[in-house]
């Protein structure tokens, strides 16, 4: 995916709910408009990251699987 992140968070090896908690903390630290690249190995993160962005109003720009890991791009919108 051709997106340049402002910050990368590697949550590989972490189980629910840690990827979401680390994501919240990382996005809190971004400025509006900046993009977080999140890497996770928890299969539940596919559903959870989408739910998290929906509930918090942040934007999920995309999700892809790279070398067996889930990679998400999240844009801080507010």
């Amino acid at each position, binding site marked *: 995916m051709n997106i340049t992140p402002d910050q990368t968070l590697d949550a590989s*090896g972490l189980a629910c709910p840690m990827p979401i*908690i680390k*994501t919240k903390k990382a996005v809190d630290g971004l400025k509006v408009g900046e993009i977080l690249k999140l890497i996770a190995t928890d299969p539940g993160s596919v559903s959870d990251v989408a739910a998290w962005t929906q509930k918090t109003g942040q934007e999920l720009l995309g999700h892809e699987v790279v070398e067996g890991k889930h990679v998400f791009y999240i844009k801080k919108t507010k």
Partner: protein
Amino acid sequence: MTEETKRLAIIASHGTVDAAYPPFILGTAGAAMDMEVAIFFTFFGLQILKKGKIDKLKVAPIANPAMPVPMPNIIGMLPGMTAAATAMMNSWMKKAKVAKLSELLAMAQELGIRLIGCQMTMDVMGIKKEDLIDGIEIGGAATFLEFASHNAITLTF
């Protein structure tokens, strides 16, 4: 679109490993989703808040037919079986890389979750405030219900 619920009110009333995890997992996830969260620790759930106790909680091998390794009650009641079941459970949790309960507790406090210890349980079980971890509130049913009455999702474990 309906108005979104912003509060999550959780009751933790059991003091076993399997019962202690869901309040913290759902509570911290709720806080991460910008919800206000309170967990009310009552009856055996109050043990979770005792100093140095949270990572020493046990799994009950008796009357627990859902254990992945089936354990007949007559075996489960033998000496040492509670420790064995607990060790087994903890090794599964570790293998699945689930955070320790103490880590989730620290995260809950960092995220500003209200942890409320039940006063009545303290009286019943002879637990003093100094027996419990720092940074918690002590309250009763009304404390929890006042929080929950503001359009909260309420979960009980």
